[in-house]
C-alpha cells in the first residue's frame, strides 16, 4: 500500500517536474513546480518528517513560489520567444541523462553505511517531530541557525538596494 502510494506520488512529482522544464510559459512552469513541491511534502510525511513537510509547503510552495510567480507577473513575461537552439537542448538533455545514469548506477551500488542514530519513528511519534527539530536547532546547530539570520539580512539588503528606485 505504502509502496503503491509512493509510486503514484513519485510519478506525479516526476511528471510535474518534466512539465516545469517543458512548459513554454513560465507561469505554467511555476505552477508545475509547486505541484512537485507538494508531492515532495507528501513524501516527507511518508518519511516521518511532518515538520519538514509543513515548512516545505509554507516556505517553498507558499513563500518562494509566490515570490517567483509575483516576479513573473511583474515582469510580464510571456512564453519564451523563438525556439531553443536545438543543440543546446540536445546536449543539455544528454548531459542530464548521463548524470541520471551515473547517479543511478552509483546509488544502486551504494549502501547506507552511515552511523545509525537513535531517532526512529517511535521517538518521533513519542516526542513529536517539531520538538526534535527544535531541540537540535537550538543545541547542536545553534550556530548555523544564527548564521541564517545574517544570510537573510544580506538577502534583504540585496533585494532592497538592487531594486529600490532611488538609492
Amino acid at each position, binding site marked *: 500500500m505504502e509502496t503503491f502510494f509512493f509510486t503514484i506520488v513519485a510519478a506525479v512529482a516526476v511528471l510535474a517536474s518534466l512539465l516545469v522544464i517543458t512548459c513554454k510559459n513560465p507561469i505554467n512552469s511555476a505552477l508545475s513546480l509547486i505541484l512537485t513541491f507538494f508531492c515532495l511534502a507528501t513524501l516527507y510525511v511518508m518519511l516521518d518528517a511532518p515538520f519538514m513537510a509543513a515548512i516545505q509547503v509554507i516556505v517553498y510552495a507558499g513563500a518562494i513560489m509566490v515570490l517567483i510567480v509575483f516576479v513573473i507577473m511583474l515582469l510580464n513575461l510571456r512564453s519564451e520567444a523563438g525556439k531553443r537552439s536545438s543543440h*543546446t537542448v540536445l*546536449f*543539455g538533455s544528454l*548531459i*542530464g541523462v*548521463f*548524470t541520471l545514469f*551515473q547517479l543511478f*548506477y*552509483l546509488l544502486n551500488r551504494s549502501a547506507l553505511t552511515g552511523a545509525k542514530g537513535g531517532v526512529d519513528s517511535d521517538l518521533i511519534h513519542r516526542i513529536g517531530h517539531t520538538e526534535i527539530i527544535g531541540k537540535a536547532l537550538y543545541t547542536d546547530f545553534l550556530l548555523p541557525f544564527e548564521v541564517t539570520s545574517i544570510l537573510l539580512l544580506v538577502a534583504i539588503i540585496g533585494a532592497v538596494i538592487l531594486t529600490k528606485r532611488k538609492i
Partner: protein
Amino acid sequence: MFEYVWLIPLFPLIGVVINGLFGKKIKNETVIGGLGALMVFCSFLVSCGILIELLAKGFEERVFEKVLFTWIKAGTFKADIGFLIDPLSALMIMVVTGVGFLIHVYSIGYMHGEEGFYRYFTYLNLFTFSMLLLVLGNNLLLMFVGWEGVGLCSYLLIGYYFHKKSAGDAGKKAFVMNRVGDFGFLLGLFTMYWYFGHTHNVWTINFRELAANAHLLPVGGVVTVITLCFFLGATGKSAQIPLYTWLPDAMEGPTPVSALIHAATMVTAGVYMIGRMNFVYIRSHETMMVVAIVGAVTAIFAASIGTAQNDIKRVLAYSTVSQLGFMFLAMGVGAFTAGIFHLMTHAFFKACLFLGSGSVIHAMHHALHHIHSHDDPQDMRNMGGLKAAMPITFLTFLVSTIAISGIPGFSGFFSKDEILWQAFANPLHGDLNIVLWATGSIAAGFTAFYMFRLVFMTFFGECRIKEKAKGHLHESPFVITFPLIVLGILAIIGGYVGIPKVIGEVFGGIPNLFEHYLEPVFKGSQEFMAQQLPHAEAHHSAALEWGLMGISVAVAVVGIAIAFFLYVVSPSTPAKFTAAFPRLHRAVYNKWYIDELYDFLFVNPCKALGNFLWKGFDVLVVDGIVNGVAGIVKGIGSVLRNVQTGYVHNYALSMALGVVVIVAFYLFR
C-alpha cells in the same frame, strides 16, 4: 751575446710602439723612417754578434735556448716565451734583419709623401718583430705566434692603400688563405702534442725536446698526418699549390712590402718550418713525396703563368711562387740544406728584383703623374728602354735576373743547381726523382724566359710611354739605389758560401761552407735517411753531375734566347703567337682560372650556405619553431576562448559536463 737574443725582436717592437703611438704626432718622415730602420739595424747588429759567437763555438755547442717566462701553462701543456739559437735560426735572423734593414731604408725613399707614413713603418717593424719571433721561437706555439703575426702584417700592408677595394680584397684573401694554412698548422700541433703525450708521455712542444724524442715517433702513419697538417700550413704561408693564389694579389701592397714580405722573408717561413721540423718530416716518406711534388708542380705551374703577365710586379710574384716551389722541391727530396740555401740566395736577388721594379714603378709613376696620364705605371707594355734613364736600377736588376736564371757565377746558379742535382740524385723517391728533376729543369727554363722577357720589355727597346713623359724619367734617389746596390752585390756573391762539391774540387777543394754550417741542424735527418735507404747509397759520378749542370745551364740559356728573340729581335711575334693560340693565352693570362675555380668551389658555396642558414634555417626554421610554438600556444588560447561564449547555458553545460566526466572517470578507473 746569446743572452741578449731577446733584444733582437725587442728593437722592432720598440719601433712599433713608438711609431704606432706617436707616429701621427711626429709627422717628420725622416724621424719615423729613420727610427724604423735604426731599430732593425740594431737587431741586425745583435744578430751579427750572435752569428759570430755561434761560429766561434764547436759544432755540438751551437744550440742555445733563452727562456724569458712561461707564457701558457695549463695542466701538462706548457709554452714558454723563449728563443732558440742554432745555425738555422741564426741564418734566418741574419737574412731577416739584413734584408729587412735594407728594405726599411729603401722604404724611406719609396714611401716619401705617402699618407700614413708612420702607419707603414709601424707595420713594417711589427712585421720584422713577428718574423723574428717566428724564426727564434723555441717552441711550436711561439713559432705560431710569429706565423700568424706575419700573416697579420702581410694583411695590413697589402691593405695599406685601403681606399682601393682591390687592396682590401687582396689583404683579406691573403689573411684567409693563411688562416687555412694555420688551421693545418694547429691541427699538426695538436696531433703531435697529443700523440707524443699519449704514447710516450712526452708532453712538449719545445723544438729541442721534440728533436730529442723524434726517434720515438713511428715512420709514416700518424707522422704522415702530422707532417701533412704542418705542410698545409706551409702551403698557406709560402704560397704553394693549392693555397698560392693570394700571393699575386698581394702585389696590391707597396713594392717594398712585396720585396720584404712576399719575396724575401715571410713567404719562406714555410720552408723554414719544414727545415725546423725536419726530424719529423723525414720520418714520413709520403709527406716528403707530397712536398716534393707540390714544390715541383708549383714551380712549373707558377712559372707558366709568369710568362704571360704584363704587370711587372705580378711577373715577379709568380716568379716568387715558382722559386718557393723550388725550395719545397728541395725540402721534399731531403735536401734541406739546398732548400735553405736557395731561400737565402732567393732573398737577395728577389728582394733586389722587387726593389728594382719598385724603382722603375716609382720613376714611371712620377713621369706619368707629370703628364696626368692614367696609364698603369706597373704595366710593362708601357715601359721599354729604361736602361738609359735608370742605369743603376737597370744594372742591379740585370744582375739579379741573371742570378735567378741560374747562370753560372751568380748566386742563383749555385742554389738552384744544387736543388736540381739533389732532385735527381737523392734516392728518396726512386724513379720519381727523374720526373722531379725534369719538371724543375723545365721550370728553370721558364724562369729564365719570363725574367728576361721582363728585362727586355722594361729596359730594352723603345720607350712606349708618351713623349712628354719621357723627359721626366729619372733614376731614383740614393736612398733607393743604395739598397739595390747592396742587394745586387749580394745576388752575385751570396752563392759562394755554398759552392757544390764538384765545382769546389775543381778549384782546389773549396768546401761547401753552407752545408757544413747547417750540418748540426740536419744531421739527424741525414743519418736517418741513410739508415732507411742503405741500398741507395750508390754514388753518382761527378760526370753525371757536371752533365746535369750543363743541361740546366743550357735550358736557362735557351730560355733567355727565346726571350731575346721574341722581345728584342722580333717584338711582333708574341702578338702573333697570342693570336694563334688565343685560348691558351687567355688561360695563362688569367692564371688558369684558378681564382674563379676557388670562388666557384669555396667562396660562393660558403656565402650561399651562410645565406641559406641565416634566412632559411635560423630565421625560418629555428626562429620559426620558437615563434611557432609561441604562436601555437597563443592560437590554442584564441581557440579556447571561443568556448567562453558568454551564454549561461554553455557555462552550465561545461560544469555539468565536468561533473559527468569526473564521475565517469571514477566509475571506469
